[in-house]
């Protein structure tokens, strides 16, 4: 157990990474909520609308935890110098890059699908190359690493806000589900 604990990332690194994950996931989730809310206002009562928004926010929080868990697990498995040593900077840049690639998949799904198998392989290759390049750059340039961390730390303030809202959403969710 002690050996496993040694392989875990530091609390500070985990918080920095979590803040960036929360930021990215919530921005997307809230953007989609805002797109849908006008239609929901037509069809839902206020309490129902609060319920739907709460479920969506709580889901975003859970998704953030799952992604963090995946990063922490990979860091624990890999040798320290590959990931754990620069956990916060690598995971922050990877999550941002992943979001940059995934958002077009959601937005232009039909176009991407029309590219066929060859297009998909090409797209995945680009994603992979960008990940490897960013990973390598973190190790090569301490300035790059510092700037990533400084952005992540600024994002932390916003992430705390999101987590607080998630907490309120969780309370709503409990009140809607618990029957006395």
């Amino acid at each position: 157990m002690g050996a496993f604990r040694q392989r875990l990332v530091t609390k500070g690194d985990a918080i920095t990474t979590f803040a960036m994950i929360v930021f990215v996931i919530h921005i997307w989730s809230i953007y989609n909520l805002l797109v849908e809310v006008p239609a929901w206002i037509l069809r839902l009562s206020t309490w129902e609308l609060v319920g739907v928004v709460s479920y969506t926010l709580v889901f975003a929080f859970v998704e953030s935890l799952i992604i963090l868990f995946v990063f922490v697990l990979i860091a624990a498995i890999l040798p320290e110098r590959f990931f754990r040593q620069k956990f916060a900077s690598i995971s922050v840049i990877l999550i941002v890059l992943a979001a940059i690639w995934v958002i077009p998949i959601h937005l232009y799904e039909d176009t991407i699908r029309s590219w066929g198998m060859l297009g998909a392989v090409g797209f995945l290759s680009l994603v992979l190359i960008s990940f490897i390049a960013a990973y390598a750059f973190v190790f090569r340039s301490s300035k790059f690493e510092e700037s990533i961390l400084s952005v992540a730390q600024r994002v932390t303030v916003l992430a705390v806000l999101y987590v607080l809202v998630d907490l309120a959403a969780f309370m709503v969710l409990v009140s809607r589900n618990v029957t006395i």
Partner: protein
Amino acid sequence: MENQVDRREFLKMLAVMPLLPLNLPEFSGQGDASLADQNLPNVLILVLDALSADHLSLHGYPRELTPNFERLADRSIVYHNHTAGGNFTSAGTASLLTGAYPWSHRAIHLHGTVVDSFIDKSIFGLFREKGYHRSAYSHNLLVTSLLFQFREELEVLKRTRDLCLVDAQYSDLVFSNDFNAAFWSEWLTMRGSGGSPGSLFLSLMHRFYRVVNKFRIGQNYEELFPRGVPNLHNLFFILEDAIDWIMTQVTELPQPYLAYYHLLPPHEPYTTRKDFIGMAKDGWIPEPKPTNRFSQKVSEGELAKSRVLYDEYIAYADAEFGRLLDHMEANGILDNTIFILTSDHGELFERGIRGHVTETLYKPVIHIPMMMSLPGKSKREDVYDPTSCVDILPTLLEATGQKIPDWCEGQPLPLTDEDGSTSSKEIFAVEAKSNPKLAPLRKATISMVKDDYKLIRYIGYKKIDNEFEMFDLKQDPEERNDISSSAQSIAAELNEIMQAKLEQENQRFG
């Protein structure tokens, strides 16, 4: 003062109070059926989703693909001019279950639910009072949302997933006390309701899971269902499973029971079983109808192809229905059961429109089958008076000796064509997906049948505000010729009646 309870007795009473509910029917597991008169007939309502009466030979359709519906018709009252409350599931089903039109219950949106004041005004609540055992199931999640609202009045609400091969949803499992809000959020998070999914990363995994399931199920059932396994939004099912379950229910449910079963076929996608492929490929193409302002511009060729697929899917639904009918006949179930076969809305393959997602209310999309088999009646009756799905609730209440509540907008169905009690009443259908749920209807399509005429009014649409069409149903049952300009006085009269009704209904939401 002699009757005063002393402290010791009071404490004894307090001690046994928690046990008192065990004697009440709703806690003792007996259900209200223990209070019921065992001589009351069972009530079984079977809804086949999106089954247009215009596609059934018993209503004059040239393709004869539904021998089992005709078998039921031979011993039933057949309503030839029966109309749905709306042109899609939520509106039509809520009207059937509450006996009220969409402008009252307000389940007017996709996955719409009734207003809070209607939650205790369903058929289930009324039959609970009479001591009926109440059971319901639906393949269609839009109906599941409604049944969830009525769950307090149901003794058995079977989950949609229980009769499906795979169900990728999680809301009903994790948030069973708050299914509707959780489900709406899940839909946004995992699939995106119209736009992108709200979950950035996990939605991709969910998509992958759905694709894998679709592939696996497709492979397993490829031989039986070459056009794909029956499904709606990747909720895959085999109709045979649902029919088998209903067979056990109708024999095993405590009597008297009220059972509402809502099955998806022939709702799109039209993936019939292999035995029915090719049955409707006879080259027949109906004469085109005038293109409508809401046309989706689907070509006549495409419409004809879709019509074939739909008709062959209906043939599959009919065959499975035949198995249920055999079972009911063999076990004498029809002898003590009021059995209703109907639908929630129809389907369109004309005027450049395919399916039922449309602002229009032309006949094929609201003309639904309605057959009612009564205990002890084995002779067919044909009723041609216009009737509506809101009439089903008052009919059943009357048949089981119950009072018809004042909110009910329907009236008991005539039992013969000579009855004439409903021949001059107005029959409405409402489409209002773009109107706010709790506001007066200002953007909607409303149709009204009165005497021999049908008026369709379009309210609040861009460039088409307050325009209407009128058809003479006697001369032109296929609704080809709009006579609103040639019969202006009749149109004005009907329009006035509709306007008065609309204003009256809108007042509640003003």
